[in-house]
Protein backbone atom coordinates (compact mmCIF):
# COMPACT_ATOMS: atom_id res chain seq x y z
CA UNK A 1 0.00 0.00 0.00
CA UNK A 2 2.86 2.35 0.89
CA UNK A 3 4.47 1.66 -2.47
CA UNK A 4 1.23 2.49 -4.29
CA UNK A 5 0.86 5.74 -2.35
CA UNK A 6 4.48 6.61 -3.04
CA UNK A 7 3.99 6.04 -6.77
CA UNK A 8 0.81 8.13 -6.75
CA UNK A 9 2.55 10.93 -4.85
CA UNK A 10 5.57 11.03 -7.17
CA UNK A 11 3.42 10.90 -10.31
CA UNK A 12 1.18 13.72 -9.08
CA UNK A 13 4.09 15.90 -7.92
CA UNK A 14 6.03 15.54 -11.15
CA UNK A 15 2.97 16.13 -13.30
CA UNK A 16 2.06 19.12 -11.12
CA UNK A 17 5.48 20.58 -11.95
CA UNK A 18 4.79 19.73 -15.58
CA UNK A 19 1.41 21.51 -15.53
CA UNK A 20 2.91 24.59 -13.89
CA UNK A 21 5.09 24.93 -16.97
CA UNK A 22 1.81 25.81 -18.70
CA UNK A 23 0.63 28.33 -16.06
CA UNK A 24 -0.08 31.04 -18.63
CA UNK A 25 -2.08 28.64 -20.79
CA UNK A 26 -4.00 27.43 -17.73
CA UNK A 27 -5.78 30.78 -17.41
CA UNK A 28 -7.04 30.46 -20.98
CA UNK A 29 -8.06 26.85 -20.43
CA UNK A 30 -10.06 27.94 -17.39
CA UNK A 31 -11.69 30.78 -19.34
CA UNK A 32 -12.48 28.43 -22.23
CA UNK A 33 -14.76 26.58 -19.81
CA UNK A 34 -16.87 29.64 -19.06
CA UNK A 35 -19.82 28.54 -21.23
CA UNK A 36 -21.99 28.21 -18.07
CA UNK A 37 -21.53 31.94 -17.39
CA UNK A 38 -22.79 32.78 -20.87
CA UNK A 39 -25.76 30.45 -20.48
CA UNK A 40 -26.36 31.88 -17.03
CA UNK A 41 -27.00 35.31 -18.57
CA UNK A 42 -29.39 33.81 -21.13
CA UNK A 43 -31.37 31.82 -18.54
CA UNK A 44 -31.55 34.69 -16.03
CA UNK A 45 -33.00 36.93 -18.74
CA UNK A 46 -35.44 34.20 -19.74
CA UNK A 47 -36.46 33.58 -16.11
CA UNK A 48 -37.06 37.30 -15.59
CA UNK A 49 -39.38 37.31 -18.60
CA UNK A 50 -41.31 34.06 -18.10
CA UNK A 51 -42.31 31.15 -15.89
CA UNK A 52 -39.52 28.63 -15.29
CA UNK A 53 -38.83 26.02 -12.68
CA UNK A 54 -36.01 28.13 -11.25
CA UNK A 55 -35.87 31.77 -10.22
CA UNK A 56 -33.16 34.07 -11.65
CA UNK A 57 -31.04 33.79 -8.50
CA UNK A 58 -31.29 30.00 -8.56
CA UNK A 59 -30.20 29.99 -12.19
CA UNK A 60 -27.18 32.13 -11.24
CA UNK A 61 -26.17 29.76 -8.44
CA UNK A 62 -26.81 26.68 -10.57
CA UNK A 63 -24.62 27.86 -13.42
CA UNK A 64 -21.88 28.95 -11.02
CA UNK A 65 -21.91 25.42 -9.56
CA UNK A 66 -22.04 24.00 -13.11
CA UNK A 67 -18.98 26.09 -13.97
CA UNK A 68 -17.16 24.64 -10.97
CA UNK A 69 -18.22 21.08 -11.85
CA UNK A 70 -17.13 21.63 -15.45
CA UNK A 71 -13.73 22.87 -14.30
CA UNK A 72 -13.25 19.68 -12.31
CA UNK A 73 -14.36 17.41 -15.13
CA UNK A 74 -12.34 18.74 -18.05
CA UNK A 75 -10.71 15.66 -19.56
CA UNK A 76 -8.38 15.43 -22.56
CA UNK A 77 -7.02 11.91 -22.16
CA UNK A 78 -8.36 10.84 -25.57
CA UNK A 79 -6.17 13.38 -27.35
CA UNK A 80 -3.05 12.27 -25.48
CA UNK A 81 -3.83 8.59 -25.86
CA UNK A 82 -4.64 8.88 -29.56
CA UNK A 83 -1.37 10.70 -30.20
CA UNK A 84 0.57 8.11 -28.19
CA UNK A 85 -1.00 5.22 -30.12
CA UNK A 86 -0.76 6.80 -33.57
CA UNK A 87 2.83 7.95 -33.08
CA UNK A 88 3.90 4.83 -31.22
CA UNK A 89 4.76 6.74 -28.03
CA UNK A 90 2.62 4.33 -26.08
CA UNK A 91 5.48 1.83 -26.46
CA UNK A 92 7.59 3.58 -23.83
CA UNK A 93 4.71 3.50 -21.38
CA UNK A 94 3.99 -0.16 -22.07
CA UNK A 95 7.57 -1.05 -21.24
CA UNK A 96 7.16 0.05 -17.65
CA UNK A 97 5.61 -2.10 -14.92
CA UNK A 98 2.68 0.25 -14.37
CA UNK A 99 -0.51 0.58 -16.38
CA UNK A 100 -0.16 3.64 -18.67
CA UNK A 101 -3.54 4.92 -17.46
CA UNK A 102 -2.00 6.05 -14.17
CA UNK A 103 0.26 8.52 -15.92
CA UNK A 104 -2.70 10.06 -17.76
CA UNK A 105 -4.76 10.05 -14.59
CA UNK A 106 -1.98 11.66 -12.55
CA UNK A 107 -1.58 14.35 -15.21
CA UNK A 108 -5.29 15.16 -14.93
CA UNK A 109 -5.22 15.21 -11.11
CA UNK A 110 -2.17 17.47 -11.15
CA UNK A 111 -3.80 19.78 -13.66
CA UNK A 112 -6.81 20.09 -11.36
CA UNK A 113 -4.52 21.29 -8.59
CA UNK A 114 -2.78 23.74 -10.89
CA UNK A 115 -6.12 24.98 -12.22
CA UNK A 116 -7.75 25.42 -8.79
CA UNK A 117 -6.31 28.88 -7.93
CA UNK A 118 -7.51 30.34 -11.25
CA UNK A 119 -10.97 28.86 -10.68
CA UNK A 120 -11.01 30.26 -7.14
CA UNK A 121 -10.17 33.75 -8.38
CA UNK A 122 -12.94 33.61 -11.01
CA UNK A 123 -15.53 32.48 -8.46
CA UNK A 124 -14.44 35.20 -6.01
CA UNK A 125 -14.70 37.73 -8.83
CA UNK A 126 -18.19 36.46 -9.64
CA UNK A 127 -19.40 36.92 -6.05
CA UNK A 128 -17.80 40.36 -5.92
CA UNK A 129 -19.67 41.41 -9.08
CA UNK A 130 -22.93 39.67 -8.15
CA UNK A 131 -23.03 39.58 -4.30
CA UNK A 132 -26.74 38.63 -4.14
CA UNK A 133 -25.88 35.23 -5.55
CA UNK A 134 -23.59 34.37 -2.62
CA UNK A 135 -24.82 31.55 -0.43
CA UNK A 136 -23.40 29.21 2.17
CA UNK A 137 -24.39 25.58 1.57
CA UNK A 138 -24.83 23.25 4.52
CA UNK A 139 -21.86 21.13 5.58
CA UNK A 140 -23.66 17.98 4.42
CA UNK A 141 -24.28 19.53 0.99
CA UNK A 142 -20.65 20.56 0.74
CA UNK A 143 -19.39 17.09 1.64
CA UNK A 144 -21.78 15.42 -0.81
CA UNK A 145 -20.80 17.98 -3.45
CA UNK A 146 -17.11 17.16 -2.90
CA UNK A 147 -17.79 13.43 -3.20
CA UNK A 148 -19.97 13.94 -6.29
CA UNK A 149 -17.24 16.08 -7.92
CA UNK A 150 -14.65 13.40 -7.24
CA UNK A 151 -16.83 10.67 -8.70
CA UNK A 152 -17.91 12.80 -11.66
CA UNK A 153 -14.25 13.46 -12.48
CA UNK A 154 -13.50 9.73 -12.33
CA UNK A 155 -16.59 8.85 -14.38
CA UNK A 156 -15.86 11.43 -17.05
CA UNK A 157 -12.24 10.25 -17.22
CA UNK A 158 -13.34 6.64 -17.51
CA UNK A 159 -15.88 7.50 -20.22
CA UNK A 160 -13.36 9.33 -22.34
CA UNK A 161 -10.57 6.85 -21.71
CA UNK A 162 -12.89 4.08 -22.89
CA UNK A 163 -13.62 5.96 -26.11
CA UNK A 164 -9.86 6.53 -26.40
CA UNK A 165 -9.37 2.77 -26.73
CA UNK A 166 -10.80 3.01 -30.24
CA UNK A 167 -7.50 4.66 -31.22
CA UNK A 168 -6.19 1.09 -31.52
CA UNK A 169 -8.53 0.52 -34.48
CA UNK A 170 -9.20 3.92 -36.01
CA UNK A 171 -6.83 6.80 -36.62
CA UNK A 172 -8.97 9.54 -35.10
CA UNK A 173 -10.75 8.30 -32.00
CA UNK A 174 -11.22 11.96 -31.04
CA UNK A 175 -13.97 12.14 -33.67
CA UNK A 176 -16.06 9.80 -31.50
CA UNK A 177 -15.45 12.01 -28.49
CA UNK A 178 -16.51 15.09 -30.45
CA UNK A 179 -19.78 13.38 -31.39
CA UNK A 180 -20.22 12.14 -27.80
CA UNK A 181 -19.57 15.68 -26.54
CA UNK A 182 -22.69 16.89 -28.34
CA UNK A 183 -24.81 14.68 -26.07
CA UNK A 184 -22.67 15.64 -23.12
CA UNK A 185 -23.33 19.38 -23.57
CA UNK A 186 -27.09 19.00 -23.70
CA UNK A 187 -27.71 16.09 -21.35
CA UNK A 188 -25.13 16.87 -18.67
CA UNK A 189 -26.90 19.98 -17.50
CA UNK A 190 -24.24 22.27 -18.90
CA UNK A 191 -26.67 24.03 -21.25
CA UNK A 192 -29.64 24.01 -18.87
CA UNK A 193 -30.59 22.45 -15.54
CA UNK A 194 -32.68 19.30 -15.88
CA UNK A 195 -35.57 21.14 -14.17
CA UNK A 196 -36.34 22.91 -17.45
CA UNK A 197 -36.36 19.68 -19.50
CA UNK A 198 -39.70 18.13 -20.50
CA UNK A 199 -40.54 15.43 -17.88
CA UNK A 200 -40.06 12.46 -20.24
CA UNK A 201 -36.72 13.72 -21.54
CA UNK A 202 -35.64 14.43 -17.98
CA UNK A 203 -36.44 10.89 -16.87
CA UNK A 204 -34.64 9.37 -19.86
CA UNK A 205 -31.65 11.65 -19.28
CA UNK A 206 -31.40 10.55 -15.67
CA UNK A 207 -30.77 6.98 -16.89
CA UNK A 208 -27.75 8.12 -18.94
CA UNK A 209 -24.34 8.87 -17.39
CA UNK A 210 -24.30 12.49 -18.60
CA UNK A 211 -26.26 14.37 -15.90
CA UNK A 212 -24.06 12.91 -13.18
CA UNK A 213 -21.06 14.79 -14.53
CA UNK A 214 -22.42 18.36 -14.16
CA UNK A 215 -26.06 18.52 -13.11
CA UNK A 216 -25.89 16.13 -10.17
CA UNK A 217 -23.02 17.79 -8.23
CA UNK A 218 -24.33 21.27 -9.10
CA UNK A 219 -27.86 20.41 -7.94
CA UNK A 220 -26.54 19.06 -4.62
CA UNK A 221 -24.58 22.19 -3.72
CA UNK A 222 -27.28 24.59 -4.91
CA UNK A 223 -29.97 22.70 -3.02
CA UNK A 224 -32.17 21.62 -5.93
CA UNK A 225 -34.33 18.55 -5.24
CA UNK A 226 -32.26 15.56 -6.32
CA UNK A 227 -32.25 11.85 -5.44
CA UNK A 228 -28.79 11.65 -3.91
CA UNK A 229 -28.73 7.88 -3.38
CA UNK A 230 -29.89 7.16 -6.92
CA UNK A 231 -27.34 9.66 -8.24
CA UNK A 232 -24.39 8.01 -6.53
CA UNK A 233 -25.61 4.51 -7.48
CA UNK A 234 -25.96 5.59 -11.12
CA UNK A 235 -22.42 6.99 -11.05
CA UNK A 236 -21.03 3.77 -9.61
CA UNK A 237 -23.10 1.67 -12.02
CA UNK A 238 -22.01 3.58 -15.10
CA UNK A 239 -18.45 3.64 -13.78
CA UNK A 240 -18.52 -0.15 -13.54
CA UNK A 241 -19.95 -0.48 -17.09
CA UNK A 242 -17.26 1.77 -18.55
CA UNK A 243 -14.55 0.09 -16.50
CA UNK A 244 -15.48 -3.37 -17.82
CA UNK A 245 -15.71 -2.09 -21.42
CA UNK A 246 -12.43 -0.23 -20.98
CA UNK A 247 -10.47 -3.25 -19.76
CA UNK A 248 -11.89 -5.47 -22.50
CA UNK A 249 -11.09 -2.92 -25.21
CA UNK A 250 -7.62 -2.42 -23.72
CA UNK A 251 -6.80 -6.12 -23.91
CA UNK A 252 -8.16 -6.44 -27.44
CA UNK A 253 -6.47 -3.19 -28.48
CA UNK A 254 -3.05 -4.28 -27.29
CA UNK A 255 -3.29 -7.23 -29.67
CA UNK A 256 -3.86 -4.71 -32.47
CA UNK A 257 -1.12 -2.34 -31.38
CA UNK A 258 1.87 -2.30 -33.67
CA UNK A 259 3.92 0.48 -32.07
CA UNK A 260 3.66 2.59 -35.19
CA UNK A 261 6.27 5.08 -36.26
CA UNK A 262 9.22 3.11 -34.98
Amino acid sequence: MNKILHKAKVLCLVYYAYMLEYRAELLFWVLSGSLPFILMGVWIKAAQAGQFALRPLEFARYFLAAFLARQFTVIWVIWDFERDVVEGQLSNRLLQPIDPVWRYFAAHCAERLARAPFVGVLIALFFWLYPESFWVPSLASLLLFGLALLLSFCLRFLMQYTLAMFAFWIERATAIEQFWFLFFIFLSGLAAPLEVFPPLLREVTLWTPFPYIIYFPAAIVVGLPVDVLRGFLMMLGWGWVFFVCNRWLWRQGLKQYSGMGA
Partner: protein
Amino acid sequence: MRDQIVVEAEGLSKVYSVALKEPGFRGTLRHLFRRQYRLIEAVQKVSFQIRAGEVVGFLGPNGAGKTTTLKMLSGLIHPSAGRVCVAGQVPFRRETSFLQKITLVMGQKQQLLWDLPALDSLKINAAVYEISDVEFRYRVGELSEMLSLQDKLNQPIRKLSLGERMKAELLAALLHRPSVLFLDEPTLGLDVNAQVSVRDFLREYNQCYGATVLLTSHYMADITALCQRVMVIDAGQLIYDGSLEGLLDRFAPYREIKLELAAPQPREILQAYGEIESIEGPSVRFCVRREKMTQAVSHILANLDVLDLSVTDPPIEEVIGRVFKAGNVS
Protein backbone atom coordinates in the same frame (compact mmCIF):
# COMPACT_ATOMS: atom_id res chain seq x y z
CA MET B 1 25.75 -18.16 -15.98
CA ARG B 2 27.14 -16.92 -19.30
CA ASP B 3 25.99 -20.11 -21.02
CA GLN B 4 22.43 -19.45 -19.98
CA ILE B 5 20.13 -18.67 -22.89
CA VAL B 6 18.45 -15.36 -22.18
CA VAL B 7 16.73 -14.61 -25.48
CA GLU B 8 15.20 -17.35 -27.54
CA ALA B 9 13.07 -17.06 -30.66
CA GLU B 10 11.77 -20.04 -32.56
CA GLY B 11 9.89 -19.68 -35.82
CA LEU B 12 8.96 -16.13 -34.83
CA SER B 13 6.67 -14.44 -37.36
CA LYS B 14 4.66 -11.25 -37.59
CA VAL B 15 2.13 -10.47 -40.30
CA TYR B 16 0.62 -7.00 -40.68
CA SER B 17 -2.40 -6.05 -42.71
CA VAL B 18 -1.73 -2.82 -44.57
CA ALA B 19 -4.31 -0.76 -46.47
CA LEU B 20 -3.28 0.05 -50.04
CA LYS B 21 -4.15 3.32 -51.72
CA GLU B 22 -3.40 4.52 -55.21
CA PRO B 23 -2.51 8.19 -55.65
CA GLY B 24 -4.93 10.75 -57.05
CA PHE B 25 -8.63 11.50 -56.66
CA ARG B 26 -9.78 8.24 -58.22
CA GLY B 27 -7.50 6.30 -55.92
CA THR B 28 -8.89 8.23 -52.95
CA LEU B 29 -12.50 7.39 -53.90
CA ARG B 30 -11.66 3.75 -54.46
CA HIS B 31 -9.85 3.70 -51.11
CA LEU B 32 -12.96 5.17 -49.48
CA PHE B 33 -15.48 2.70 -50.88
CA ARG B 34 -13.50 -0.43 -51.64
CA ARG B 35 -10.52 -0.57 -49.37
CA GLN B 36 -7.90 -3.10 -50.30
CA TYR B 37 -5.50 -4.68 -47.89
CA ARG B 38 -2.26 -6.50 -48.32
CA LEU B 39 -0.65 -8.83 -45.82
CA ILE B 40 2.94 -7.88 -45.06
CA GLU B 41 5.09 -10.60 -43.60
CA ALA B 42 7.34 -8.33 -41.56
CA VAL B 43 9.12 -11.21 -39.82
CA GLN B 44 9.13 -14.76 -41.14
CA LYS B 45 10.04 -17.78 -39.05
CA VAL B 46 13.03 -16.21 -37.37
CA SER B 47 14.92 -18.44 -34.94
CA PHE B 48 17.93 -17.59 -32.79
CA GLN B 49 19.30 -17.77 -29.29
CA ILE B 50 21.31 -15.20 -27.33
CA ARG B 51 23.29 -16.15 -24.26
CA ALA B 52 23.70 -14.09 -21.10
CA GLY B 53 26.17 -11.23 -21.46
CA GLU B 54 26.36 -11.42 -25.26
CA VAL B 55 26.27 -8.22 -27.33
CA VAL B 56 24.68 -9.01 -30.66
CA GLY B 57 24.32 -6.67 -33.62
CA PHE B 58 21.06 -6.95 -35.49
CA LEU B 59 21.50 -5.70 -39.02
CA GLY B 60 19.28 -5.21 -41.99
CA PRO B 61 18.08 -2.56 -44.41
CA ASN B 62 15.12 -0.33 -43.64
CA GLY B 63 11.92 -2.33 -43.39
CA ALA B 64 13.76 -5.63 -43.01
CA GLY B 65 11.98 -6.53 -39.77
CA LYS B 66 14.57 -5.52 -37.13
CA THR B 67 12.33 -3.20 -35.12
CA THR B 68 9.35 -5.54 -35.42
CA THR B 69 11.49 -8.33 -33.99
CA LEU B 70 12.65 -6.10 -31.13
CA LYS B 71 9.05 -5.12 -30.39
CA MET B 72 8.07 -8.79 -30.16
CA LEU B 73 11.05 -9.57 -27.94
CA SER B 74 10.19 -6.70 -25.61
CA GLY B 75 6.51 -7.63 -25.47
CA LEU B 76 5.13 -4.58 -27.24
CA ILE B 77 3.45 -6.57 -29.97
CA HIS B 78 2.07 -10.06 -30.20
CA PRO B 79 3.77 -12.46 -32.63
CA SER B 80 1.55 -13.91 -35.35
CA ALA B 81 3.29 -17.27 -34.97
CA GLY B 82 6.25 -18.86 -33.29
CA ARG B 83 7.65 -18.97 -29.80
CA VAL B 84 9.57 -16.29 -27.96
CA CYS B 85 11.13 -16.41 -24.52
CA VAL B 86 13.11 -13.59 -22.90
CA ALA B 87 14.63 -13.88 -19.42
CA GLY B 88 12.59 -17.03 -18.93
CA GLN B 89 9.27 -15.33 -19.64
CA VAL B 90 6.81 -14.80 -22.46
CA PRO B 91 7.24 -11.11 -23.37
CA PHE B 92 3.73 -10.21 -24.56
CA ARG B 93 2.25 -11.19 -21.21
CA ARG B 94 4.09 -8.12 -19.91
CA GLU B 95 4.38 -9.38 -16.39
CA THR B 96 5.94 -7.00 -13.87
CA SER B 97 8.87 -9.31 -13.20
CA PHE B 98 9.60 -9.39 -16.95
CA LEU B 99 9.34 -5.62 -17.43
CA GLN B 100 11.76 -5.09 -14.56
CA LYS B 101 14.40 -7.16 -16.33
CA ILE B 102 14.30 -5.59 -19.78
CA THR B 103 14.50 -2.28 -21.54
CA LEU B 104 13.98 -1.12 -25.09
CA VAL B 105 15.64 2.08 -26.22
CA MET B 106 14.34 3.50 -29.45
CA GLY B 107 16.49 6.20 -30.98
CA GLN B 108 13.50 7.99 -32.45
CA LYS B 109 11.21 7.74 -29.41
CA GLN B 110 11.52 9.53 -26.14
CA GLN B 111 10.11 8.73 -22.73
CA LEU B 112 11.35 11.83 -20.87
CA LEU B 113 8.91 14.67 -20.23
CA TRP B 114 9.83 17.36 -22.73
CA ASP B 115 9.30 20.44 -20.57
CA LEU B 116 10.84 19.16 -17.34
CA PRO B 117 14.40 18.34 -16.31
CA ALA B 118 15.42 14.71 -16.78
CA LEU B 119 15.62 14.33 -13.01
CA ASP B 120 11.84 14.66 -12.70
CA SER B 121 11.22 11.88 -15.23
CA LEU B 122 13.85 9.78 -13.49
CA LYS B 123 11.99 10.21 -10.20
CA ILE B 124 8.89 8.74 -11.84
CA ASN B 125 10.93 5.80 -13.12
CA ALA B 126 12.41 5.27 -9.67
CA ALA B 127 8.93 5.16 -8.13
CA VAL B 128 7.56 2.90 -10.87
CA TYR B 129 10.45 0.44 -10.50
CA GLU B 130 10.33 0.75 -6.69
CA ILE B 131 13.88 1.98 -6.33
CA SER B 132 14.63 3.46 -2.90
CA ASP B 133 15.76 7.11 -2.60
CA VAL B 134 19.27 6.12 -1.52
CA GLU B 135 19.62 3.64 -4.36
CA PHE B 136 18.11 6.17 -6.78
CA ARG B 137 20.72 8.80 -5.91
CA TYR B 138 23.51 6.23 -6.19
CA ARG B 139 22.37 4.91 -9.58
CA VAL B 140 21.74 8.35 -11.04
CA GLY B 141 25.20 9.45 -9.85
CA GLU B 142 26.84 6.35 -11.30
CA LEU B 143 25.05 6.38 -14.64
CA SER B 144 25.30 10.14 -15.12
CA GLU B 145 29.04 9.91 -14.49
CA MET B 146 29.38 7.11 -17.03
CA LEU B 147 27.41 9.24 -19.49
CA SER B 148 29.05 12.58 -18.53
CA LEU B 149 25.63 14.03 -17.83
CA GLN B 150 26.02 15.22 -14.22
CA ASP B 151 25.41 18.91 -14.91
CA LYS B 152 22.59 18.35 -17.40
CA LEU B 153 20.02 16.56 -15.29
CA ASN B 154 18.50 19.76 -13.93
CA GLN B 155 17.93 21.33 -17.35
CA PRO B 156 14.62 20.90 -19.18
CA ILE B 157 14.87 18.17 -21.80
CA ARG B 158 13.94 20.60 -24.55
CA LYS B 159 17.08 22.63 -23.77
CA LEU B 160 19.43 19.67 -24.22
CA SER B 161 21.26 18.83 -27.41
CA LEU B 162 20.27 15.72 -29.35
CA GLY B 163 23.25 13.81 -27.98
CA GLU B 164 22.54 14.86 -24.40
CA ARG B 165 18.89 13.91 -24.83
CA MET B 166 19.84 10.47 -26.09
CA LYS B 167 22.16 9.98 -23.12
CA ALA B 168 19.39 11.08 -20.76
CA GLU B 169 17.06 8.60 -22.46
CA LEU B 170 19.62 5.87 -21.94
CA LEU B 171 19.92 6.82 -18.29
CA ALA B 172 16.15 6.65 -17.87
CA ALA B 173 15.98 3.32 -19.69
CA LEU B 174 18.72 1.78 -17.56
CA LEU B 175 17.88 3.21 -14.16
CA HIS B 176 16.26 -0.05 -13.09
CA ARG B 177 19.41 -1.96 -14.15
CA PRO B 178 17.81 -4.23 -16.72
CA SER B 179 19.70 -7.39 -17.57
CA VAL B 180 18.40 -7.50 -21.15
CA LEU B 181 18.80 -4.46 -23.38
CA PHE B 182 17.10 -4.07 -26.74
CA LEU B 183 18.60 -1.05 -28.45
CA ASP B 184 17.05 0.24 -31.65
CA GLU B 185 19.32 2.77 -33.32
CA PRO B 186 20.61 4.27 -30.06
CA THR B 187 23.05 6.56 -31.89
CA LEU B 188 20.67 7.73 -34.59
CA GLY B 189 21.38 11.31 -35.62
CA LEU B 190 24.18 11.84 -33.10
CA ASP B 191 27.46 13.51 -34.00
CA VAL B 192 30.63 11.43 -33.97
CA ASN B 193 31.66 12.40 -30.41
CA ALA B 194 28.24 11.62 -28.99
CA GLN B 195 28.20 8.29 -30.85
CA VAL B 196 31.55 7.37 -29.35
CA SER B 197 30.46 8.25 -25.83
CA VAL B 198 27.21 6.28 -26.15
CA ARG B 199 29.17 3.28 -27.43
CA ASP B 200 31.68 3.56 -24.57
CA PHE B 201 28.83 3.72 -22.11
CA LEU B 202 27.11 0.66 -23.52
CA ARG B 203 30.34 -1.30 -23.44
CA GLU B 204 30.95 -0.27 -19.83
CA TYR B 205 27.38 -1.13 -18.84
CA ASN B 206 27.68 -4.54 -20.46
CA GLN B 207 30.97 -5.21 -18.65
CA CYS B 208 29.76 -3.93 -15.26
CA TYR B 209 26.43 -5.71 -15.17
CA GLY B 210 26.88 -8.59 -17.60
CA ALA B 211 23.83 -7.37 -19.50
CA THR B 212 22.68 -9.11 -22.65
CA VAL B 213 22.38 -6.65 -25.53
CA LEU B 214 20.66 -6.86 -28.89
CA LEU B 215 21.52 -3.76 -30.90
CA THR B 216 20.34 -2.45 -34.25
CA SER B 217 22.25 0.32 -35.93
CA HIS B 218 22.93 1.72 -39.35
CA TYR B 219 26.36 2.84 -38.20
CA MET B 220 28.96 0.19 -38.89
CA ALA B 221 31.12 1.68 -36.13
CA ASP B 222 28.46 0.86 -33.50
CA ILE B 223 28.52 -2.74 -34.56
CA THR B 224 32.29 -3.08 -34.84
CA ALA B 225 32.86 -1.37 -31.47
CA LEU B 226 30.35 -3.44 -29.51
CA CYS B 227 29.40 -6.69 -31.18
CA GLN B 228 31.26 -9.92 -31.66
CA ARG B 229 28.25 -11.54 -33.22
CA VAL B 230 25.83 -10.21 -35.79
CA MET B 231 22.54 -11.35 -37.19
CA VAL B 232 21.40 -10.08 -40.57
CA ILE B 233 17.75 -9.93 -41.48
CA ASP B 234 16.30 -9.12 -44.88
CA ALA B 235 12.66 -9.09 -45.96
CA GLY B 236 11.76 -10.61 -42.62
CA GLN B 237 14.12 -13.55 -42.91
CA LEU B 238 17.27 -14.16 -40.93
CA ILE B 239 19.98 -14.65 -43.52
CA TYR B 240 23.16 -14.53 -41.48
CA ASP B 241 24.00 -15.35 -37.89
CA GLY B 242 27.68 -15.48 -37.04
CA SER B 243 30.78 -13.53 -36.17
CA LEU B 244 31.26 -9.95 -37.30
CA GLU B 245 34.66 -10.78 -38.81
CA GLY B 246 33.09 -13.49 -40.88
CA LEU B 247 30.48 -11.07 -42.17
CA LEU B 248 32.96 -8.33 -43.01
CA ASP B 249 35.51 -10.62 -44.59
CA ARG B 250 32.93 -12.18 -46.80
CA PHE B 251 30.82 -9.24 -47.70
CA ALA B 252 32.71 -6.02 -47.04
CA PRO B 253 36.33 -6.49 -48.04
CA TYR B 254 36.27 -2.89 -49.29
CA ARG B 255 36.60 0.50 -47.64
CA GLU B 256 35.57 3.83 -49.02
CA ILE B 257 37.92 6.79 -49.69
CA LYS B 258 36.31 10.20 -49.99
CA LEU B 259 38.38 12.92 -51.62
CA GLU B 260 37.96 16.64 -51.95
CA LEU B 261 40.34 17.74 -54.72
CA ALA B 262 41.61 21.26 -55.39
CA ALA B 263 40.22 20.97 -58.92
CA PRO B 264 38.11 18.40 -60.78
CA GLN B 265 40.06 15.66 -62.53
CA PRO B 266 39.03 13.54 -65.52
CA ARG B 267 37.78 10.02 -64.82
CA GLU B 268 40.63 8.50 -66.86
CA ILE B 269 43.18 9.87 -64.40
CA LEU B 270 41.20 9.02 -61.27
CA GLN B 271 40.45 5.41 -62.10
CA ALA B 272 44.11 4.55 -61.68
CA TYR B 273 43.66 4.91 -57.88
CA GLY B 274 40.76 2.56 -57.33
CA GLU B 275 37.23 1.69 -58.30
CA ILE B 276 35.32 4.95 -58.66
CA GLU B 277 31.94 5.06 -56.97
CA SER B 278 31.04 8.64 -57.83
CA ILE B 279 32.47 11.89 -59.13
CA GLU B 280 30.78 15.20 -58.39
CA GLY B 281 33.08 18.01 -59.48
CA PRO B 282 36.08 17.95 -57.14
CA SER B 283 34.41 15.35 -54.82
CA VAL B 284 35.34 11.77 -55.57
CA ARG B 285 34.46 8.48 -53.86
CA PHE B 286 36.61 5.38 -54.34
CA CYS B 287 36.06 1.83 -53.29
CA VAL B 288 39.36 0.11 -52.38
CA ARG B 289 40.10 -3.36 -51.02
CA ARG B 290 41.20 -3.30 -47.36
CA GLU B 291 44.64 -4.81 -48.03
CA LYS B 292 45.38 -2.15 -50.65
CA MET B 293 44.17 0.79 -48.56
CA THR B 294 47.57 2.12 -47.35
CA GLN B 295 49.09 1.88 -50.77
CA ALA B 296 46.12 3.61 -52.41
CA VAL B 297 46.07 6.50 -49.92
CA SER B 298 49.79 7.20 -50.24
CA HIS B 299 49.50 6.99 -54.03
CA ILE B 300 46.63 9.51 -54.02
CA LEU B 301 48.39 11.93 -51.69
CA ALA B 302 51.58 11.75 -53.73
CA ASN B 303 49.95 12.40 -57.10
CA LEU B 304 46.79 14.46 -56.59
CA ASP B 305 46.22 17.92 -55.11
CA VAL B 306 44.03 16.83 -52.17
CA LEU B 307 42.19 19.30 -49.90
CA ASP B 308 40.50 16.67 -47.75
CA LEU B 309 40.60 12.90 -47.49
CA SER B 310 38.62 10.51 -45.36
CA VAL B 311 38.47 6.74 -45.17
CA THR B 312 35.28 5.10 -43.99
CA ASP B 313 33.69 1.70 -43.87
CA PRO B 314 31.09 1.28 -46.53
CA PRO B 315 27.61 2.10 -45.25
CA ILE B 316 26.05 -0.89 -43.56
CA GLU B 317 23.40 -0.87 -46.27
CA GLU B 318 26.13 -1.67 -48.80
CA VAL B 319 27.50 -4.50 -46.72
CA ILE B 320 24.03 -5.89 -46.33
CA GLY B 321 23.47 -5.39 -50.05
CA ARG B 322 26.46 -7.61 -50.74
CA VAL B 323 25.12 -10.21 -48.35
CA PHE B 324 21.86 -10.22 -50.30
CA LYS B 325 23.61 -10.39 -53.65
CA ALA B 326 25.55 -13.40 -52.44
CA GLY B 327 22.26 -14.95 -51.34
CA ASN B 328 24.01 -16.35 -48.31
CA VAL B 329 22.07 -18.14 -45.63
CA SER B 330 23.94 -19.62 -42.71
